[in-house]
């Protein structure tokens, strides 16, 4: 997958520091938003007379959160079946609070230092690697976008997920709450498709034990249930559908688990670990507290010796649980649910190894969501709220959309809004805060310069006169440094027959020229032949054709006699070694940024390094930025 891997160390200190700084910066903005909203809300409630707020309430609250505790009918629910003060049924509360908490946990996990660089190459790409080609291509698109803008993408995942979590937690009823459910569905599907490669359902090793069908798909299903209209709360249908769907899924997983030839029936085979044993052994190597690793290792040893029995137990357990769920009979479901919970916890601890250790864990995997879904399904089936516990939305007065957006009514609306509505607005602001920079970054065709800086460090800021030269360009014309005076010069040294870095650097110069656009008229891109043994102009022309620099108007590739070239190398203090036995010329990669007066202002010890598409475009962006800075200083 070409664009996924930026080639950087996932713990690169420059990137990690920048990621932390971005999170801190955005975190302060989040606090500011919540603070301002809170102050405004409290102040307006204190300032506006009660009747004014009452008017607003009578008009429907003027916000989508009209059906909130303020406006909800008084407690009339049967104890234990609906939340006092909200009328929200218990099953929905389980989903909303459970998955809201999970989203917040996932958001916090996304803030781990390694995430910015590591997620595409260490998490997304390996997950997609065993999936069909078309899945890899879909996933690669997103992974590439992430690797081009690791700061924005990493931070956006944090704020979006924390925002969704808070939103779910603070909005128990009404339009705000349902909208939170729908946003959870949407973001969950985005993560499921691009982050989990469709939960691996197209990969050959699919199994419930390892997390199929993908944890975030369960988040989405939960979001869908949360988004159901209130009139469905009194119906057992959501519970029946939830348990029925889960039951069918578990039966299907049992069949898949029992399918011969997939390596689950053997703990070991011909000295090789079976599928489950191998997976458990791998998970045991994840950095984590020693006691947890010991448990996982012990289970791996047990499975290696009793693979058949373990798989038989899993198959039977899944099949029985699934059948009980499908039956819809609470008497069967209750014990099945207890057993299923135990099985899920065992799987979570011993096989999935909690899922979030190691610095690149993005969520606690699928078992906790499974337990939440099954529990909610059972509650929805067996503990329906009394009819009076759920207010009839049709009975409440609703403001027209004009009333809701009228500016003159805004203070009154805010004052009348419930806490949950105000907090929901803050959560939405948090999501937008995360999503907007990423969306803006996507408009840029090149990667962030942070990647280039992470590889080479920041360039040295210098000020000395650039040593002069008089050489021949690719068209046979004599070019001196003095003849280029008045323009910004990006000067590099390239070996035309080099087979690794030099073609990459040339392509980065070409892209820098494109990024400079109209400014390129004031910038000269100059390279001096860095191979004193291959000095003919024909080699420069061949190189230009090779990297597509032939038609770039401000590109000049210079050469000269061996003596002339070596004099230039010396004047710029650039070492070069003619290596024996079939090696290319030994040299480094350098770029000098020279201002219009002929002063060297920056020097990059320019290593295109991994040479991935993201790092290349980040180098090009850095070159273009440098040229623009020098143009701006003139």
């Amino acid at each position: 997958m070409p664009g996924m891997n930026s080639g950087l160390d996932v713990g690169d200190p420059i990137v990690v520091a920048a990621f932390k700084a971005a999170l801190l910066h955005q975190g302060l903005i989040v606090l500011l938003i919540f603070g301002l909203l809170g102050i405004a809300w409290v102040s307006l409630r204190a300032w506006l007379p009660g009747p004014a707020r009452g008017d607003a309430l009578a008009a429907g609250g003027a916000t989508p959160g009209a059906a909130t505790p303020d406006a909800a009918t008084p407690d009339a629910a049967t104890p234990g079946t609906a939340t006092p003060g909200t009328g929200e049924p218990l099953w929905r509360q389980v989903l909303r609070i459970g998955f809201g908490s999970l989203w917040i946990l996932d958001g916090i996990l996304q803030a781990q230092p390694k995430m910015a660089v590591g997620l595409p190459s260490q998490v997304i790409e390996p997950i997609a690697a065993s999936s069909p080609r078309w899945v890899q291509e879909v996933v690669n698109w997103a992974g590439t976008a992430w690797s081009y803008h690791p700061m924005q993408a990493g931070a956006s995942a944090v704020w979006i997920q924390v925002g969704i979590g808070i939103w779910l937690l603070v909005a128990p009823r009404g339009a705000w709450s349902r909208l939170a459910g729908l946003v959870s569905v949407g973001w969950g599907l985005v993560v499921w498709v691009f982050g989990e490669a469709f939960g691996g359902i197209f990969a050959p090793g699919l199994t419930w034990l390892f997390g199929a069908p993908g944890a975030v798909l369960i988040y989405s299903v939960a979001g869908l249930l949360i988004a159901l209209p209130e009139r469905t709360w009194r119906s057992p249908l959501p519970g029946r559908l939830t348990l029925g769907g889960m039951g069918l899924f578990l039966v299907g997983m049992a069949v898949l688990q029992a399918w011969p030839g997939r390596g689950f029936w053997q703990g070991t085979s011909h000295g090789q670990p079976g599928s489950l044993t191998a997976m458990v052994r791998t998970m045991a190597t994840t950095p984590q507290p020693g006691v947890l690793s010991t448990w996982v290792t012990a289970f791996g040893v047990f499975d290696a010796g009793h693979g058949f029995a373990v798989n038989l137990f899993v198959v039977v357990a899944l099949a029985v649980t699934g059948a009980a769920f499908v039956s819809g009979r609470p008497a069967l479901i209750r014990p099945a649910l207890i057993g299923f919970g135990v099985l899920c916890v065992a799987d979570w601890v011993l096989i999935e190894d909690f899922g979030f250790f190691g610095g690149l864990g993005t969520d606690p995997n699928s078992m906790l969501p499974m337990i939440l879904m099954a529990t909610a399904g059972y509650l929805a089936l067996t503990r329906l709220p009394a009819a009076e516990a759920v207010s009839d939305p049709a009975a409440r007065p609703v403001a027209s959309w004009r009333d809701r957006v009228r500016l003159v009514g805004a203070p009154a609306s805010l004052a009348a809004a419930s806490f949950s509505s105000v907090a929901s607005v803050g959560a939405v602001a948090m999501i937008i805060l995360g999503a907007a920079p990423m969306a803006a970054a996507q408009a840029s065709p090149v990667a962030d310069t942070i990647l280039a800086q992470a590889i080479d460090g920041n360039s040295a800021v210098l000020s000395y006169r650039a040593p002069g030269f008089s050489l021949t360009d690719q068209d046979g014309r004599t070019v001196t440094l003095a003849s280029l005076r008045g323009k910004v010069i990006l000067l590099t040294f390239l070996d035309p027959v080099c087979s690794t870095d030099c073609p990459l650097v040339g392509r980065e110069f070409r892209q820098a020229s494109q990024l400079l656009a109209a400014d390129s008229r004031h910038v000269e891109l100059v390279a001096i032949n860095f191979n004193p043994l291959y000095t003919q102009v024909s080699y420069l022309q061949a190189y230009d054709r090779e990297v597509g620099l032939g038609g770039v108007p401000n590109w000049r590739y210079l050469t000269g006699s061996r003596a002339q070239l070596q004099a230039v190398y010396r004047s710029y203090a650039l070492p070069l070694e003619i290596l024996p036995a079939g090696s290319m010329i030994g040299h480094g990669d350098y770029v000098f940024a020279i201002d219009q007066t002929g002063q060297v202002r920056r020097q990059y010890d320019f290593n295109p390094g991994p040479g991935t598409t993201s790092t290349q475009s980040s180098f090009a962006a850095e070159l273009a930025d440098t040229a623009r800075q020098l143009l701006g200083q003139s």
Partner: protein
Amino acid sequence: MNGSRRLAAFALILAAASFAAGCGNTAPAGPGPATQAAAAGSVPLSSAFATAAGTWAVTVMGSRADYNDFWQLFARPAGSTRWELVTPPGVADNGGLVLASVGGGSLIAAFRPSQDLAYTPLTATSDLGQTWSSANPLAGALASTPDALAVAPGSGRLLALLADDTAELAAPGYASWSTLVTQRNLAMAPGAKRCGLVNLTAAAFTPSGVPLLAGNCTKPGTVGVLADQAGAWQLAGPALPAALAHQTVTVLRLTRIADTTVALLAAGSGRGTTLLAAWTSGDGSHWALSPPFPLNGAQLTAASFGSGGAVGVLLTANRGETIAGAGASWRSLPALPPSTATLAPDPAGGLDALAVHSATLTVWQLAPGTAGWRTSQTINVPIQFGSSG
């Protein structure tokens, strides 16, 4: 998302490995087996040939991993028993070295492109590799065959066979290349239609300077050697004996040594393949054929050409055969030294076996009339492992 840590670890290793990339940086040498033979069905680049001034041998050394396979050129002056490392400097030669003899101690070497290099640098020597001067490059990628480059006797024109099955021609100086013919056009040429040409494997000149191209014919019994007769391409290969008339023929090698053009042919397929050598000293109208040599499933890994039309072939399983020239018979060599990479003819009638282990070349000699190989020289090649990664 945590179900793929095994793959994550693998990706981590890959990422770490990619950081090792660098231009001309050196790393500690690592032992490893030298690349021995090309993939089955292709013609390996390892080769040797003799001229009046000495003998050239080219073979790959180093290790297979991470572009640590470097092709090395060795020369042995006429009258000497000592080989010298004369690999031309300045270009990474991981893609392979292809040689074209100008005669005497003069040679043109082409660096087949590798990694991000897309064209073919050329360099020349006139003193048996002691000094090299770059020549103008070839715009495309040279074909991966030891006979992809040929120099015309007298005129000095250079004929190159490219990887896209195009034959290019350049006058001395090589500043301007022109397309001589493409495989597609060649297959359609009236004089070549009865061959059913499917690909090109070699380029050469006859002693009189006529361009020759060789390839594989689909028509059984037809040898795909074609000559450019005043712009019209004609089949110019040897006629096969009746016993081989129903076999398809592969031209493994086609090269000119002094005044003789030598071809190595493989007739048939699988375990029934037989090897033939063929010689012509004119324009290709009269060829002499060797007796067929049954390969019994073996494959050619290197070939060498000596004075008087002598041919030595190195086969898989460290077997070797030689034939002294037209009218002679194949002679099996004593069991070859381990890791022999190519054979090199000795002007005195002897034979050298060049054995490679990573960065060490060991020369074994088989003196005329003797039955065993003996070590005569060891060369430690200063390979810069990691310099092309």
